[in-house]
């Protein structure tokens, strides 16, 4: 299956390029621009992560090591440029980050890829904790708790581009994002990329057709670490600071969540996931202290009910749409969405109230969804509690109806795709 550049593919890639290029024109505002730059960087990071998980079958809890170390090397390079010690175009800094990432990918990957599966996952956790602790122990290179700061305009102006204004940083990130997407997609079409899939599906059989499974994993690991380093360098340019948090288990968990909710079985899945994740973290964190709880719940729900991510939910609709039968499913989908909205309403109410009540420093008088009430009064507790319960009950019924309708449509279509579980 050499992927031919069909009309559909030109449309997808062209659309992606267009979206990246025009996004700041369509959605204006400083905050939106910040989010979009973060999304572009996260897309690269999440795609690099999926080279491991979705394509290689390697679950890593420590991928931030490679983006973080790439960021550290990039920030030092940038500071050298600022001092005039070396001349290097700042726009190509992500290459420095990528090479640093790949170097450490080779170093740690050699050890990590000796084992597979759950053991590999635990090793990746051990390595990220090790690197995090060592970063704090060596303040000379890593700057200790305060990290290393820099100035992204240090390279001066090239063709009018200084990287001072946020819009220029966005376009730099977007350009690298597009280039990385193409590169990582192209890698999936190479002998290594195909055998990485084979090793994911059946590592034993891959050995019996002549491939050293560990070597395949190792190479995939190094390439993945390269792109992680690219995203790390962009992060360094964007935030102008690199700290130990860049190599933390927390950040590693973040990219895992992003890639997974987007959908690991699909190449574009992590793109969707990165966008959703940045939106969650960026936009939602301003509204509620409990945003991480909501993100966690969303993640767990996806793991249990849609392990193929948002991309899989979309992909499942394609045969339905092609045969024109989406109309039959739409009412049940809308009912389920409505039930979910009710449940979420109740949940948010309860959670926000718990936060108010448990934090003695906050006044119990609160406003939510336009309503003002007292967090210790009985009425709002009962109200939100019942809403939550009602929402969950409705959701149960609605999802059963969706399943039934789905099965009916699949029966008509010949049922190639798996039905959703209730």
């Amino acid at each position, binding site marked *: 299956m050499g992927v031919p550049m069909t009309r559909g593919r030109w449309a997808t890639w062209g659309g992606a390029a267009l979206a990246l290029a025009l996004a700041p024109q369509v959605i204006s505002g400083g905050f939106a621009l910040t989010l979009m730059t973060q999304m572009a960087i996260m897309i690269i990071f999440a795609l690099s992560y999926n080279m491991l998980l979705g394509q290689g079958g390697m*679950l890593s*809890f420590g991928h931030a090591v490679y983006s973080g170390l790439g960021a550290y090397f990039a920030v030092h390079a940038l500071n050298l440029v600022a001092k005039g010690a070396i001349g290097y175009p700042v726009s190509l800094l992500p290459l420095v980050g990528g090479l640093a990432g790949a170097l450490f990918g080779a170093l740690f990957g050699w*050890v*990590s890829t*000796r*084992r*597979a*599966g*759950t*053991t590999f*996952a*635990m*090793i990746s*956790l*051990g*390595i990220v*904790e*090790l690197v995090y*602790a*060592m970063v704090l*122990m*060596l*303040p*000379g290179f890593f700057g200790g708790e305060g990290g290393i700061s820099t100035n992204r305009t240090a390279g001066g102006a090239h063709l009018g581009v200084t990287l001072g204004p946020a819009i220029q940083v966005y376009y730099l990130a977007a350009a690298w994002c597009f280039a990385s997407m193409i590169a990582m997609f192209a890698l999936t079409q190479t002998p290594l990329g195909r055998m990485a899939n084979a090793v994911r599906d059946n590592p*034993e059989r891959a050995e019996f057709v002549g491939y050293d499974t560990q070597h395949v994993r190792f190479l995939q690991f190094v390439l993945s670490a390269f792109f992680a380093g690219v995203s790390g360098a962009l992060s360094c340019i964007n935030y102008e600071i690199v700290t130990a948090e860049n190599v933390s*288990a927390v950040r590693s*968990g973040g990219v*895992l969540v992003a890639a*997974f909710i987007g959908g690991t079985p699909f190449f574009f899945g992590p793109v969707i996931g990165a966008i959703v994740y940045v939106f969650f973290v960026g936009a939602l964190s301003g509204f509620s202290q*409990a945003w*991480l*709880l909501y*993100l*966690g*719940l969303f*993640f*767990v729900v996806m*793991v*249990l*009910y849609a*392990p193929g991510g948002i991309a899989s939910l979309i992909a499942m609709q394609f045969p339905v749409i092609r045969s024109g039968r989406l109309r039959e499913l739409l009412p049940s989908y809308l009912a389920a969405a409505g039930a979910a909205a009710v449940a979420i309403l109740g949940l948010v109410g309860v*959670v926000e109230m*718990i*936060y108010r009540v*448990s*934090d003695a420093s906050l006044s119990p008088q609160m406003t939510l969804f336009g309503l003002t009430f007292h967090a210790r009064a009985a009425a709002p507790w009962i109200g939100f509690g019942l809403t939550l319960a009602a929402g969950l009950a409705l959701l149960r019924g609605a999802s059963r109806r969706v399943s039934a309708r789905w099965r009916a449509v699949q029966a008509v279509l010949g049922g190639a795709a798996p039905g959703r579980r209730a």
Partner: protein
Amino acid sequence: MDFVLVQLLNGISYGLLLFMLASGLTLVFSLMGVLNFAHASFYMLGAYFAYQASVLVGFWPALVIAPLAAAGLGMLVERFGLRRAHPHGHVAELLFTFGLAYLVEEAVHLIWGRSAVNYKIPPELDGPLFSIMGTQFPVYRGFMALIAVAMLVSIWLVLTRTRIGLVITAALTHPGTVEALGHNVPRVFMLVFGGGVGLAALAGVVGGNAFVTDPGMAAALGPIIFVIVVTGGMGSLAGAFYASLIIGCLVTFSVALDWRLADLFARFGLAVTPQTPLATLWNIKLSQAAPTLPYLLMVLMLILRPRGLMGTREG
């Protein structure tokens, strides 16, 4: 000499606490094939439940209530969560427990806030047990070790002497056969999972007041437990035991020592000055490097003996 002895006792008691955690994790992994990423989260829940219970009814009832509550929660988690993830494979199960760890930490933030809570050692257990040449060994450390040993002996007895233990041991290797013989294997899974996390919670009850009880305790201890399990050999209880003691002693000793590589070089006549390349590295004290040692041990083990101390070869 007195230093070595005291640190050894401290190290062993800490190692036993670690083994309480690692053993529950290993049992669940051996039986169900899933590594519970949220295992240390139940350790944290045990500490917080015990704190809350001890504030309301005192420490001694809390010692019983907290692990039982955590075990109950664990059974619900298995029944309604893990079981759902099971058909999707081991990665999905691991990811479910990973998400669960997030949720537990956020729930703790929600209910008890983001700073540490004052979970105290009960006065009757506070104080020195005995003195060895001037240094005191606390009663509570001895109590911790006692609880750990008692729990492990009970588990061994349950697994080898009772009917349910026999069923569990059989289901460890042949769940299908055991189910065909009429035993409710899903219920066995639920009980074992609940028991495993209950064990973690018990460790939290006795560990939470000896060390600190704050929302970060799961994230701090979790990776060490996984290192123990990997170093000891995945699925090996004996390996986990040795690895727990080794790492317990390693951490305890190194935190108390200020040795530096520069001192070692000096013994061989090599002086380390501020001009020496990587001078910072040679001047790092062992006490500073202590947090990294378990991970370094794991990496060393992976290079020299990938299957761990007592693990079986993969594949």
